[in-house]
């Protein structure tokens, strides 16, 4: 197969990179392999980080798709990726001050993605499938022009602006802090609950059959949240196992509470324009669903005590 040299990519290569250029694909696109570090150059065509390798880019533009192969790392700062970014099994994507015009897609078993001060299209984390790795998506101060969807992992967005919908199903947790979400919010089957703090959610917000509790606003036990949020439509919380706290929020629609155990605690400082539908209590008075009134237990204390006991039982950590 015909191979082309990297010098064909750009003459002003500030690259200190060992970028290996592979043959054109069947569609004649150029694929540049990146191992090492790269500077402010333009890579025409696709960029590939080979399996198990690391690529660190600073100020690099890639006109095609970017692929982070299995077990590899891509660290980029000040970059411009004009198409999609795909992250494979155990791949890690670390993006700072970078524009991704296309989508970011993390495959099943991806190690994770961290975005800071960046702008991107939609983000998708594939469900875990048969893999053993549950990756993460951590977003700081980043604009996402599209939907964010995850079927896996640790999911936390702070200072995010999302033009589409945010949906997770089967994640460890979904936390949205100091963020703007233009579309709907759907959090289902998360293993350790969800926190929405200081954020504005324009569309309907739905929390279904989550474990570990739901915390909208401060004074919950999941996060040291400083303020409540704004919800433009209905907020529905159902089938939660664990403490549900709704505190210091403005809800333009209804607050619908169904089959939460214990029943949701709704503070008097919320402004809920559509009214509350379903079983609820004042904060600190929540009772197990379907039983008499009991003072809500301090689940944070329980969790800490349980963790300490488990650590003691486990003995020396095998690290």
């Amino acid at each position, binding site marked *: 197969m015909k191979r082309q040299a990297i010098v064909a990519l750009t003459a002003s290569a500030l690259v200190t990179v060992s970028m290996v250029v592979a043959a054109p694909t069947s569609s004649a696109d150029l694929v540049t392999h990146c191992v090492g570090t790269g500077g402010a150059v333009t890579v025409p065509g696709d960029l590939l980080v080979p399996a198990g390798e*690391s690529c*660190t880019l600073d100020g690099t533009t890639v006109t095609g798709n970017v692929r982070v192969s299995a077990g590899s*790392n891509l*660290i980029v700062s000040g970059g411009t990726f004009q198409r999609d970014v795909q992250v494979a099994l155990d791949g*890690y994507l*670390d993006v700072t001050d970078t524009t991704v015009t296309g989508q970011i897609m993390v495959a099943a078993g991806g*190690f*994770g993605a*961290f975005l*800071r001060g960046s702008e991107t299209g939609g983000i998708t984390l594939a469900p875990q499938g048969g893999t053993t790795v549950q990756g*993460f998506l*951590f977003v*700081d101060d980043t604009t996402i022009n599209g939907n964010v969807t995850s079927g896996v992992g*640790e999911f*936390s967005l702070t200072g995010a602006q999302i033009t589409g919908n945010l949906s997770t199903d089967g994640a*460890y*947790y979904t*936390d949205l802090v100091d963020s703007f979400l233009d579309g709907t919010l759907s959090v289902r089957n998360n*293993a*350790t609950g969800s926190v929405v703090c200081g954020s504005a959610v324009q569309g309907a917000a739905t929390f279904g059959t989550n474990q570990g509790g739901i915390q909208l606003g401060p004074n919950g036990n*999941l*996060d*040291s949240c400083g303020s409540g949020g704004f919800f433009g439509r209905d907020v529905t919380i159902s089938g939660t196992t664990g403490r549900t706290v709704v505190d210091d929020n403005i809800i333009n629609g209804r607050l619908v509470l169904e089959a939460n155990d214990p029943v949701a605690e709704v503070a008097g400082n919320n402004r809920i324009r559509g009214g509350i539908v379903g079983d609820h209590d004042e904060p600190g008075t929540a009772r197990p669903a379907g039983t008499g009134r009991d003072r809500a237990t301090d689940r944070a204390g329980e*969790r800490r005590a*349980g*963790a*300490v*006991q*488990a*650590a*003691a*039982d*486990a*003995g*020396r*950590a*095998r*690290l």
Partner: protein
Amino acid sequence: MLATVLGAALVVALLVAVPSSAVVAQVLTWTANDSTTRYASAPATAVAGPTTIVFENSAATGNTTGMPHTLTFDTSTPGYNHDVALNILANPFDANGGRHEAEVTLTPGRYRYFCAIPGHSTMVGEFTVGPGGADTTPPEVSAVVSGERDGSGNYLGSATVTVSATDAGSGVATVEYNVDGGPWTAYTAPVVVRQLGAHMVHYRATDVAGNTAPEEMVSFTVVEPGPDVCPNSDIRPTVVIGAENTGVTNVDTGNGCTINDLIDEDAEYADHAAFVRHVDAVIEALVTAGVLTRRDKGVIVRAAARSDIGY
């Protein structure tokens, strides 16, 4: 000096390469038992040339039910050698008591074999035959000592010796070791030495052609496990990575090491991703042990990602 060799959890890194010679007549042995899904034992490699095939399906190999099996070489599946037509039927009650032999000549390549008894279709396997030629080179053998160590290099509580042997010729036949001059013992698993004091572990290996590598030795000292694996701990009250205070309590993780010790932000990392992955790994272990919550982990790993460590 007496040594105590305890607990031998088995994971031997015996890297047996494709044999390349046959200077001695070789005998390949298959055994079967009551299982209808797999042979009890079978060779993985061989060398080209005249070979004695032994197939034993007897009470001695674990057949307690009289179950018949065959050792049949595949002569039709593409990708394998088809030059040996072998089909041995054996059961514990046959005239040979279940033990049969056949003389064949193997050629370089792969052979596939199976049991032709109906219902035994998963009793299949293959072995590789290397080219013939004289093998006069002994195996390469090495050993690695591992375990928690103190600042003087002594092993805390125990040391584990892992022996590896490779032979590019006829393949490794045996690996042996002894501890502190004791009897030579077949090496089947990493050797754990717990007795306090100085120790020497000798080891050697022999290949199929009979070449024996010179005996080698590793020495080490086992001392009492200290109560504090991290004697100069980072005891800041919270977990700090770079300039970021995560707010997560910097607890002792159970062996004298705090979370900050385990994160070890001042160590050398190949790149930033290596540091993030390191933090993820050590913190995931603490989540598994119940020391931290998964949200704590998120806060810490995120701080690692934000940091400039590894750049």
